[in-house]
């Protein structure tokens, strides 16, 4: 018999095993939950064939612009974030210099500032370039001025986004550099490489998978952004989806744009996966992690401080101080601008959603690992796709999905909080699944086998072995999701119930009405709420080392 036929039978054999031996209450519930969460994304993929009457118009007029602008923003933001993130991570993990300890901790703080709030904080920055633009217009020509103006808009948007998104790369790169074996670097030095060569030839290639993972997070966040690009007037795919749907009233057109965007995202994910396929090279090194840092002299120390301070000042200090000064100006209107209801809406929604997401992630990940089920593993992958898809696209998928439920059940879900929580689950499930999966893999996999071997039920294993051992991971996962949800804008904006205000929607609404100064109050409240779990997570990350 031809061996290739035997090989092709294997997936069938696995499927047979799954159906015969792994079908139980846990796997069936997990499969249904996973598929239910994937459904809104599936809806968009299924609607790819539908044709909008405006599609040819969109294709001829704006599609290329959306593509080009998104590409410029993604490429530029990824590049500058890469420079900010990798340089600061390398300095912090390898060198000892004044204020290094404080900077190590503080460099995560820009994560507390959503891209759209950073954009508001820099709303008038372009005015600084007016004299230059006037000079160019008077001395060259108006086209040159227009070109310079456009370039400045792109540059400022990219710089603003990079300064708040670089911590994704910083965190992962720092962790990778710290885990790298000291022995390897020592070996390179004994072979005649200096510090600079060690960085380029050893440390950077070894940390590549982690850095690429960080870059992909930055790319996803850039594509997801709606507030910042709208503020600086750059039409991208996400703002185009909003415009086509809400401005032109063309849902099918928005759907087609979403499908094109998803196609590009999947392409990026495939490239990322290929780039990360060598991660074994990185992980297989079991030598001792970096212990002693190199002490820098005064001049080098000053340069290192400047290098780490630049993104921190741009991404946290300037936005925070500007918001604080504006808040001081508008302090008299504080009670009108920020209500207790708004804060409790934000907190309540984020807490309920975070708990729901962590519980669902726990169920899906535990079932997949406990029963070693390929089917559940696959359905989990589908269910966690939402994190790589912009909020606006998910919102469309969810509205399509609920329209079908409404039609079948006469139960109107649209505009309800349940729908918004569901949307957050679709978008942020991956944020919780990732740490929980790592937690169970590290702490519980072999113990689960022991538990099974001692005759314990699945529920007993979950309750007495898994939950106590990954308690801290569950808290971490919950806090990560909480931070993301409280900052979230596009989904909340589209799916919130009528008259339901959160801190993010209030900030956006005020800034849309050119009330940037007033928008500082809800924005500051949001940053304060995000800072608490962020500081706690940072502290725990430090202690776990």
């Amino acid at each position: 018999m031809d061996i290739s036929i035997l090989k092709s039978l294997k997936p069938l054999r696995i499927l047979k095993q799954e159906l015969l031996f792994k079908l139980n209450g846990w796997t069936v519930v997990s499969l249904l939950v996973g598929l239910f969460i994937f459904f809104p994304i599936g809806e968009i993929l299924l609607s790819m064939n539908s044709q909008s009457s405006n599609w040819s118009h969109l294709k001829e007029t704006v599609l290329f612009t959306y593509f080009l602008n998104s590409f410029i923003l993604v490429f530029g933001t990824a590049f500058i974030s890469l420079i900010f993130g990798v340089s600061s991570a390398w300095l912090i993990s390898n060198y000892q210099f004044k204020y290094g300890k404080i900077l190590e901790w503080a460099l995560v703080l820009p994560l507390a500032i959503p891209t759209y709030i950073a954009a508001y904080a820099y709303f008038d920055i372009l005015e600084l370039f007016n004299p230059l633009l006037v000079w160019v217009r008077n001395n060259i020509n108006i086209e040159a001025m227009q070109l310079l103006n456009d370039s400045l808009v792109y540059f400022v948007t990219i710089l603003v986004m990079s300064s708040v998104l670089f911590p994704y790369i910083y965190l992962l790169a720092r962790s990778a550099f710290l885990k790298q074996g000291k022995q390897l670097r020592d070996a390179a030095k004994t072979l005649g490489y200096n510090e600079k060569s060690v960085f380029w030839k050893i440390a950077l290639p070894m940390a590549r998978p982690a850095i690429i993972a960080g870059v992909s997070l930055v790319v996803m966040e850039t594509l997801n952004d709606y507030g910042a690009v709208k503020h600086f007037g750059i039409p991208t795919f996400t703002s185009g989806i909003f415009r086509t749907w809400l401005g032109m009233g063309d849902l099918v057109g928005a759907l087609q744009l979403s499908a094109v965007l998803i196609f590009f995202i999947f392409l990026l994910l495939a490239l990322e996966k290929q780039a990360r396929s060598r991660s074994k090279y990185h992980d297989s090194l079991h030598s001792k992690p970096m212990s002693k840092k190199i002490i820098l002299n005064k001049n080098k120390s000053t340069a290192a401080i400047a290098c780490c301070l630049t993104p921190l000042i741009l991404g946290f200090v300037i936005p925070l101080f500007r918001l604080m000064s504006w808040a001081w100006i508008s302090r008299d209107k504080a009670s009108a601008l920020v209500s207790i209801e708004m804060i409790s809406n934000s907190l309540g929604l984020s807490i309920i959603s975070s708990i729901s997401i962590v519980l669902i992630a726990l169920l899906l990940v535990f079932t997949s690992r406990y029963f070693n089920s390929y089917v559940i593993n696959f359905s989990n992958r589908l269910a966690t796709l939402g994190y790589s898809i912009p909020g606006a696209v998910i919102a469309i998928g969810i509205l399509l999905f609920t329209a079908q439920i409404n039609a079948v059940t006469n139960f109107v879900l649209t505009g309800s909080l349940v729908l918004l929580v569901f949307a957050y689950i679709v978008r942020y499930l991956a944020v919780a699944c990732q740490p929980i999966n790592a937690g169970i893999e590290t702490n519980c996999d072999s113990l689960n086998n022991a538990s099974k071997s001692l005759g314990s039920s699945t529920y007993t294993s979950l309750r007495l072995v898994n939950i106590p051992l990954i308690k801290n991971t569950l808290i971490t996962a919950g806090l990560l999701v909480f931070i993301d949800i409280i900052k979230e804008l596009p989904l909340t904006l589209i799916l919130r119930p009528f008259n339901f205000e959160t801190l993010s929607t209030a900030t956006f609404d005020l800034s849309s009405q050119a009330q940037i100064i007033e928008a500082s109050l809800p924005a500051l409240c949001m940053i304060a709420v995000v800072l608490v779990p962020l500081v706690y997570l940072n502290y725990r990350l430090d202690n776990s080392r």
Partner: protein
Amino acid sequence: MNELLKLQNISKTFRKNNIDALKNISFECAKGDVISIVGSSGSGKSTLLRIIAGLEIPDEGEIILEKNKINGSGIYLAPEKRNCSLVFQDFALFPNMSVKENIFFGKNASKNKSMIDELIEFTRIKNLLERFPHEISGGQQQRVALVRALSINPALLLLDEPLSHLDHELKHQVRNELKNLIKKVGATVLMVTHDTEDAMYMANKVLVLNNGVVDQVDSPASIFNFPLNSYVAGLFGKTNILPFKDFPFLDHHFFDKDRNEDVVSIRPHEFKLIDGNSSVEKPQIKGRVVSVDSLGPFLEVSIDTGKFELIVHVDRNQKIETDHDLSFYIEKK
């Protein structure tokens, strides 16, 4: 025979790397048997144990435990429903539970309290009950893991490399304790080990796995003295694989695929040095000393007979020098 476990044609291929981990494994285990499964790393011994425990599903074959089919065509009994328990290589003690909670964790363990108390006394872990796993030594952890596995009164006890985590000195002590414990409870045991000395010390039967295939199942003495192939012969210590045609007076021989001829396995200690003055009526082997190495209690001497090279072990008090001619006879049990 009071048969407890029966495996028939068990096969398993891992999808990830397309490796045939086990190929048509069949053997039987009687009640009260202690069987050691040995083989070099990657031979499939741990996979076999995990399949019996229910932690892996075989692609083909049947397993019958206590006359119940637990694996077979369309049949798979979940690990928690099998009447067997597994002691893991790293002991897998629950770090969030005390020693006592670990021991009584098993399903229905509390119903076997008097038996467990007796085991706790026997293994001398009574004073450790309130401690946590990280607060006790490796040897103590091993005993706790054993008592925990026995707490559910399993029909079959599976041990996955139970001594590999222990240092040399502790290992001998724990091995002795383990043997006594197994004897005391009269357990039926399947033990995976890569250490052939442990295998022979602990078991009344040894199963040799080689690249996912059973090469030999026999008593430790038979496996050592009468291996069925070169792999089994080499696994249990140094040996000389020599052409049978040069030793026709030996009873036990086997076919060697690589050499494509019948061969015999003669261990270095089975060659006996003939003193120049004494006369021996047995067939003699003559050769020139190529090298002499002291290995502590004996000397390892390399001999060139002109046809083949031999390794022989002689008493360390013998004066042996290179380039001298020596004569040996063979004393096989």
